[in-house]
């Protein structure tokens, strides 16, 4: 050693760079090594999100609140949906669907665009690319937390006390994250090659909301076919949220199908992402 300035430590294992072949799943060691970076990227997104806005963080509360009121007025009062909620006040019913839905569509949008918006970064420095869509998920969580507080306030306002089923709420949140992340991986990688994705995404989110029982209860679908809604993982999540908060019979078949579909999306999304990772840097340029 030419000088003593390099701290003595065991020689690090060699890094081998060569063309990889075939399908790759997760490189867990690599992800763990860069875990702090995921936090930093999320922290950056959170820090920057409400800069230069007049009311700042109030947006987090206003968005679901205003939507809830609009839904209550148009779907609840005018379309008489409030007769179908099984006794739950319609604003509360709508909010319980809106919160997970907004989180989902936010993740879809943010992670789908994440590679393109972070183009400068990923063409100049190496870190596991999966961290990019992953960190956008982390960045959405504080807003969701605030949303939950709003939900708590609404529960208190309407004097609805959830039962023990509320303990399952974290599980359904996890289900939501897995499904959103899976689709986010697909969209993010596709977006680097096909900018069509960027234009399709808002439309996709809108369409998806209508096939998800957000403004209407799943009970509108005949019971025999209701479990089929589970092919849409968000149906499982939204129904799950309502079951956690308002109780009632649990649609287990629907939950199981949604979970299976979410896992399939996550695993296929990860494979797809890792597969495209090889070339999307060259496509992004920079």
């Amino acid at each position, binding site marked *: 050693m030419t000088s003593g300035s390099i701290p003595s430590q065991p020689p*690090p294992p060699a890094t*081998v760079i060569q063309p990889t072949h075939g399908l790759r799943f997760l490189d867990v060691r690599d992800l763990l090594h860069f875990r*702090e970076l995921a936090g930093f990227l999320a922290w950056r997104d959170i820090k*920057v999100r409400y800069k230069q806005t007049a009311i700042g963080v109030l947006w987090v509360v206003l968005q679901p609140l205003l939507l809830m009121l609009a839904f209550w007025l148009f779907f609840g009062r005018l379309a008489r949906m409030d007769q179908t909620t099984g006794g739950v006040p319609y604003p509360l019913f709508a909010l319980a669907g809106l919160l997970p839905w907004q989180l989902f569509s936010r993740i879809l949008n943010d992670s789908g665009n994440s590679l393109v918006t972070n183009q400068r970064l990923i063409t100049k420095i190496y870190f596991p690319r999966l961290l990019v869509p992953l960190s956008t998920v982390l960045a959405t969580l504080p807003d969701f937390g605030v949303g939950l507080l709003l939900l708590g306030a609404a529960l208190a306002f309407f004097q609805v006390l959830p039962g023990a089923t509320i303990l399952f709420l974290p599980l359904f949140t996890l289900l939501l994250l897995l499904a959103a992340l899976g689709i986010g991986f697909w969209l993010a990688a596709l977006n680097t*090659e096909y900018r069509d994705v960027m234009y399709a995404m808002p439309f996709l989110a809108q369409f998806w909301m209508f096939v998800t029982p957000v403004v209407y209860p799943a009970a509108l679908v005949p019971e025999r076919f209701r479990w089929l809604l589970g092919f849409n993982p968000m149906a499982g999540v939204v129904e799950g949220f309502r079951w956690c908060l308002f109780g009632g019979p649990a649609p287990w078949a629907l939950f199981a199908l949604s979970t299976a579909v979410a896992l399939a999306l996550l695993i296929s999304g990860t494979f797809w992402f890792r597969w495209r990772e090889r*070339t999307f*840097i060259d496509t992004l340029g920079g």
Partner: protein
Amino acid sequence: MNQELVIKAENVGKRYQLGGRVRYKALRDTLTDLFTSPFRVFRPHSRPFADTPDFWALQDVSFEVKRGEVVGIIGRNGAGKSTLLKILSRITEPTTGRIELHGRVGSLLEVGTGFHPELTGRENIFLNGAILGMKRAEIRRKFDEIVAFAEIEKFLDTPVKHYSSGMYMRLAFSVAAHLEPEILLVDEVLAVGDAEFQEKCLGKMSEVAHAGRTVLFVSHNMSAVQRLCTRGLLLDRGGICFDGPAPEAIRRYLQPSGKEAEKSSRLEWTPRLARYPFHEVVRLKWFRIVDETGAIVDNRLLFNSHQYRALIDADLMQGDARLIFGLSFYDSESHLLLFGTSNHDAGLINFGNRPPGSIQLSMPIPRNLFWNRSYEVELCCCLHYTGWVLSPENESRLAFDFFRDDDLDPYSNPTRAGYLAPVIPWTVKAHASEAE
């Protein structure tokens, strides 16, 4: 321990596909592919566009680097330098070959990667540090050092969007400079910033190099390469065309052989528009050495008995008092011998009150100064304290041989030592007082 290999690259190649469709191919093409040959999509490096031409940015590149070496990677634009760094820093995968790296790699392909304009200096130090691969604790430990080096103490809590570009660059470089990897990859970071900043960066980099770290340094700035590097890797069209001592690599880079050398016996340089695009103040047209009749010298030989002139022709787009032209004279090993500018020696030529239009500068090549050797003269041009129009160590160099043909002194040595031979009047006198 000194001989330990830290980088071993074997037959590394990188292929890109050319053509506009590669960037944004239509979804339907892939869908069609998917149905016509459903499994091809999942083949490694499948090529959905077999008909698009290939371009090998790198091909068959093999080299080894030992611990503590400082290697300059030089070559013209498009020679593959940046691609090589991108592969070494794992940003992109090679198409062929294999590289082994021993040690933590830090790469600095751009100053300020990941800086966010809305975040404060303090916040950006942490963010950028994490992006460059530092742990939170490590950044905290070096925080004061980083701030001190960047000289931004007073603005730590100001969003960097309010920083001057100088402060921004200093902060960005400072974070990167305090990364302590065993292998440091640096790409052209010195291309920005003022002279003082560049000096500071170079100082810091040589510090890093002397601490026994391995550095791979891509630059167009030959004096920086010369100062920092012990070894030079000259790339040309995707391959290594020279690997050896840095000065030799630099010489080969600056003196293209073969056809180009033949061409350069005509002492004229015309900028290629692609490389020196439109500048809002001045547009250089050509730079020539001409004889008394105004003809371009075309055998690279200058005689001391003749009066030659360097002519610079340019279009002035707008009058600007900051505009300065300079000429540098080098010896054949690229040591700077002389430097003169239009605002120092010419009685302050001021372009500030000059109407736009075609201009021509003329400078006599000094007589009774050069000896029977090879020299090079190079044009540079800048806006004072603002930026380069044509920075030093550029491709405008014209190489010439000088002949002191009118030196009639019978005692003169045609191979006398030293590169410059001004006529200096010596005198001698006897000490009268010694007799007393």
